């Protein structure tokens, strides 16, 4: 693998979906998946996952999942850099599972540890009546595909409402990016990194 002329570069992501902050809801679980471009392919690890249901602790407002992420991508082109899409679900007053938030964020470019907080949102009902009936029936409006939130296309037809935040932690390792001519760290930080190591 240690060839001088690599054809692909690797992006190793591990980390976890640490916690969420949804002030109004409890007993939530989340799903995640990755959205990436044509030139990207996962080489190992799980592309999708669903977490346990977590409840708020006594007195604490955050919902902790600590749900691990571990995936390695290979790619030939930074275009279509992978994004993680997190969607959070939980029961409503009648016990139906409804969506509580969608959010997406690019995996960080630079190697190292990153903690990211994603704001979450859900699509709004088209009308008051719809809102009422969807509440009654326990069928809130959902995105047809959670991956919609990682794309810009078609978003203009939706209306969304903010819901809460999800905190993620990433540990990023890249390989051969520099050999392929992609510089993701500035000279300064690279030198700092070197001096530290």
């Amino acid at each position, binding site marked *: 693998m240690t060839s001088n002329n690599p054809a692909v570069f690797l992006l190793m992501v591990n980390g976890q979906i640490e916690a969420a902050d949804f002030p109004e809801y409890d007993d939530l679980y989340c799903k995640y998946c990755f959205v990436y471009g044509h030139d990207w392919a996962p080489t190992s690890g799980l592309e999708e996952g669903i977490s346990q249901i977590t409840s708020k602790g006594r007195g604490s407002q955050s919902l902790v999942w600590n749900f691990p992420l571990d995936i390695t991508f290979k790619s030939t082109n930074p275009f279509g850099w992978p994004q993680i899409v997190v969607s959070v679900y939980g029961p409503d007053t009648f016990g139906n599972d409804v969506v509580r938030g969608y959010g997406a964020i690019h995996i960080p470019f630079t190697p190292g540890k990153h903690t990211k907080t994603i704001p979450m949102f859900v699509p709004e009902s088209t009308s008051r009546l719809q809102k009422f009936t969807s509440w009654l029936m326990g069928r809130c*409006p959902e995105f047809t595909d959670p991956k919609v939130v990682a794309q810009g*296309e078609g978003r203009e037809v939706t209306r969304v409402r903010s819901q809460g935040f999800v905190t993620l932690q990433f540990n990023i390792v890249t390989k051969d990016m520099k050999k392929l001519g992609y510089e993701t760290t500035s000279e300064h930080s690279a030198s700092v990194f070197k001096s530290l190591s």
Partner: protein
Amino acid sequence: DLPTAEEAYNFFTFNFDPEPQQQPRRKKRHSRRREAEEEGEGESGEEDEEKEEEEGEEEGELEGEDDEDLFIIDQSAQDFLEVKRAEYIGYSRRLQRERETLFVPSMRPVPASSKLPENVRPRYLEEEGLYVGERPPVCLTNQNILENRILKQAEGRKWFGDDGCIIALPDPINESSSRPPLFHLEDELDPALQAVYRKALKTKHVNLYITGMGDPQADYQLDVDASGLIFSHHPLFSREHVLAARLAQLYDQHLTRQHKNLTRLLTDKVTQKCANKTKLPALSQVTQQRIAEYKQEVRHTRQLRDVEQEKDRALLKSIIRVWKELKALRDFQRFTNTPFKLFIRREKVDREQDEQEFENDIIAEVSELEAEAEEDYQRKMSEYRRQHEEWKSWKRKQKKQKKKRQQEEEEEDEESEEELGEEPEKPEPPEKPDMGDLEEQVREKAARIHRKPGEPVLIPELTVSGPVTPNEQCPRAEFARREDVAKRALFIKVLYNDKEVSRTDSRTLNMDFRVHFGQIFNLKIVNWPESIKLQVFESVGSSSSLLAEVCVPVPESSILTGSAPFEEMEFSSNQRVTFNHEGVGSGVPFSFEADGTNTQTLLTSGKLSWKLSCCVSWAVGEDDVPLAPPSSQPGGGMYSGLRQMDAIACIGASGLNDMKKLGKWAAESRLDPNDPSNASIMQLLSVVSGGDVAVPEYFRLEQLQEEFNFLTDEELHRCRRFRLLRLRSQEVPEFRHFKCVPSMEREISEKVFQDYEKRLKEGEIIDTKEHIDAHRALVAKYLQRVRESVINRFLIAKHHFILSDVVSEDEVPSIGLLGWNLFKLAEPKRPLKPRRKERKKVTAQNLSDGDIKLLVNIIRGYDIPIRRPYASKPPVSAKSGRSFAEPFTAPVSSHTPQQGSEWPFGQPLIRPFVEVSFQRSVLQTSTADGPNPCWNEEIVLPFSAPNGDYSSTSLQSVRDEVFINIFDEVLYDVVEDERERGNTIHTRIERHWLGSIKIPFSTIYLQSRIDGTFKVSTPPVLLGYSKERSLGSEGGYDAVRSRSEGTFLSLFITIEPQLVPGDTIREKFDSQEGERLLIASEVFEKEASGRFPDRPCLTTVIDINGKAVFVTRFIRPLTPPQELLDAFPNGPQETAELVARYVSLVPFLPDSVSFAGVCDLWSTCDQFLTLLAGDEEEHAVLLCNYFLSMGKGAWLIIGVAIPEVSDKPLSQSHINKTEGGKSQISVGEIMETHQWKSFEMDVKTLYFCMEPISGFPLHLPFSEIRPIIEAVHSTGVHKVEAPNVEFALAVYVHPYPGNVLSVWVYIASLVSAR
């Protein structure tokens, strides 16, 4: 406010405690009162009575307490009411009471001792001689009362003065009234006081605010640094001062000249130019001219130099003269006023060299002059010669005339002489210039203006170190002058826009008449600076007079405080001042000489040195942002003179950026490149011209784009990787799902593009090989183009989203839905006849090859043709010679007799099986028996999407079809030897094609399941098979199909897992229809779909140009081709059928395949007949139009059929109501099939010895050759593997008008009978 019920209750039920606070408070009051009484000093003396009062009060209170107790005991209304008689307090008693509470100060005068502190005697300030104002008059009793009262107060004594009286201000009332007299309104006002109305005027500075009012932050600051003042003349100058000032002035001049050193510069220039001139080769015209120019210049510079030299010399001389005068004056008056001292330094020079230079110079000049004189002489000479010639010719003429005249009479007038004109003067030859004289002249001039060779260079030096005679030693007049000088003080007022803004401190005038101020004024300015003036004031004592006013130019915005140089400004005033002491005065004549001759008049003048800078002290000058007011304001008049000389003034500061302009200006003004003051400009120009900045003559946007392009566009296009990426992003079908574009270009081979380029090329070249005639090729190409444009449109439309694409939201449930849900509760849990339920749909996101399977459930068949017995032979019995050829039905032998028994003729059975082929995988069912077999088998076929793309759009465009073929399995016994028959079975299986069904995959995908009984398309003639009606055998089912002939197959096809069908396009195509029509049709559509939700309702369709068109526009009566009408002149029914047949022969090309999942395109009948391809809509529309023109009532019915997903229109004439499209074939078929009868006969006659024969005609509308080959291929005739099989093939093409062709292919396979 009324108490609430609760409050009332609480109040009444409350157990009031006796108040414990009452008592102490009372005691306090007592003590306070007691104190007061003590202070009162026995004034009251009624303590006893008071005590009585108190006791009384206390009793009263006790009683009150008792009352409260009573409340609790008995709460009747009477208890609250107390009826008493009115209380009367006697006068004396009331007075007593009042006395307790009220204090009445007495009117008696207060003794002085109580007003003053103990043991202090009153002190009267008046007696001590101090002024004490008159006290305001106050009545004595009032005063006494006041004093008494004040004394009772705390710290009452502070109100009393030392004299024991109340402190009072002096009487404030003016003795005389100062109020202006009131006018009587009736009286006329003094006309001078009359108010005059004037219109409001705006000050002229209003519009000159610098940045408008919007920006209060931008405060501009002008720093005026008034540093000092030097008088070059002042009225108080003594004579010596005058001389000294003159000396200083001259010396200054000298210094500046020295500094510039013009003489030296010009000398250098002259020498250099001379050198240049000699260097130039005198060859061409241009150089000649250049030389001439040089000469001119040299002469000019030399003149300049001479002038300068002369000036220098004169200056030096005058300095020395003034100094001498000054010395003489000092000697004369025997004191010195000024510290000036002039030293003259001699600088020795090398005599030899100096002389040499001097001589050289003179020689050079002389030679030049000589050359010039020579030239002049030459020119004059040539002129002279010309004139001389003229004169000569004139002379000659005159002589001739004279001769003539002599010949004629003597009396000729003088007029004839006059005719020749006046006699031209005889030109004098010019003098030859005297060269010796020239040299003399030059030498004389040099002696005048130039230092004599070998003479030392004189350098004057002025110092101020000389002693000044002290005042005591001066004569009285001089002393008076000096006194006067000391009295004078000066200050400067700074006026900004004619308003005084500040002034300096006044400084006294020194002996040397220099004043140093050194004050900086920071002017915060709001208005645009128009003028800044400094006014010099001189003050003597308290009066001051304006000496001079100096206008200071407004500085350029680039001049900042730190960098501004001190500038000096001269001023003068024309005041006449005379003194009676040594001061010379101003504006008055005076003389240096004792006898009063040589008078001079001097005016007060001086130099004001100032520094004015425009500095911007934004944010306390922390950032050095030079934000002086914008300098767009036209400059003041004081610059106008300067402009002509100054390059920057001439072309504007902004012109500095325009190098071209600057260069032009430099060329025009003949800027001297050697002048040091021009050095910077010259350098700039040289740099610029070296860099050769060609300023384009045109304007363009993004003029820096080229600099930022790191590759040219061509290179970018050539790069394979970028090309690949670009094509992918354009969603070109070949690359749309290209994964992992390599990161290096070298890893991409050209092969990647081969297919794509080939396709591009094919688009241009019509492949005539695949098409029979050019017309069809053109049509194919046109179709291809339409397809491409539609697909492009579709791709664009695909990126338009509506809410339902992105967000899935439940519909608001209707009453019907709720009812249905209720109904569902009541339905049986386990129905006897279960229905297929909807499965959960899978979004096509993470599917891969092999995940999707196509399930084909073949249930049963109906009316499959049965084998026909051979005509010539008895079937089973006669096996004498050709036992091998007998159909062998071994596995179902038990069954055979049964069937045989049913059919009296003992016809052979049919053993059909179904073969399903899809995407190169072929699977078949087991073999069943009889014409109505029941398989009930499920066939699972794998499905793989093209390019591994399982997105809905890709799945929609899958063009693969499911072929379901019915074959008859025929077993032939091939046992050669009769003896082996007992223990060996050796058979050969042959299969004979009976019919097929084609179902496109897209249909299955979009319908998600296909369930029903389908008609198998069978050839009209099947050799060796006959269609037999199974009369009454199936009972009820026959009733359904009684009228329809043919073979049927019950199928159920679905995809596992179920895929979400892609949504059809609903992009609103633009339309040329009227807005009202569109709205009305929309309303109608909505209404109709509301009433019949299951039925399709079309109002607008998309035509081939991609425009929405109202659907009825396609329907117009259209005359069918004349040939068809002429075929059956008497049979309208036949004609109608023929027309229908004609229409059916136009090839079918389903939209859903050609425009995969895009949309349903309708072409007009004209386009349809030109293209010769179309789907059901076009066929139906055409037929409908033909029928309409034939005078039949015709309707177009749009329904849904299975094989073609989309709406299936059925064209029904009401005459031919019974059947749709297919049954109309009959007439034409009859016409054509008689051909086949003959073919059959031929085959039979040719191979009558061969048995068995199986064959069939295939009938196809002609579009291309390939589908025909495929159709033949799919029958599997070629799969017969008998050793001695022979095939027969015949093709017949029947022409119809308009290039419509009907193709018949007859295939037969025969096994030779040896």
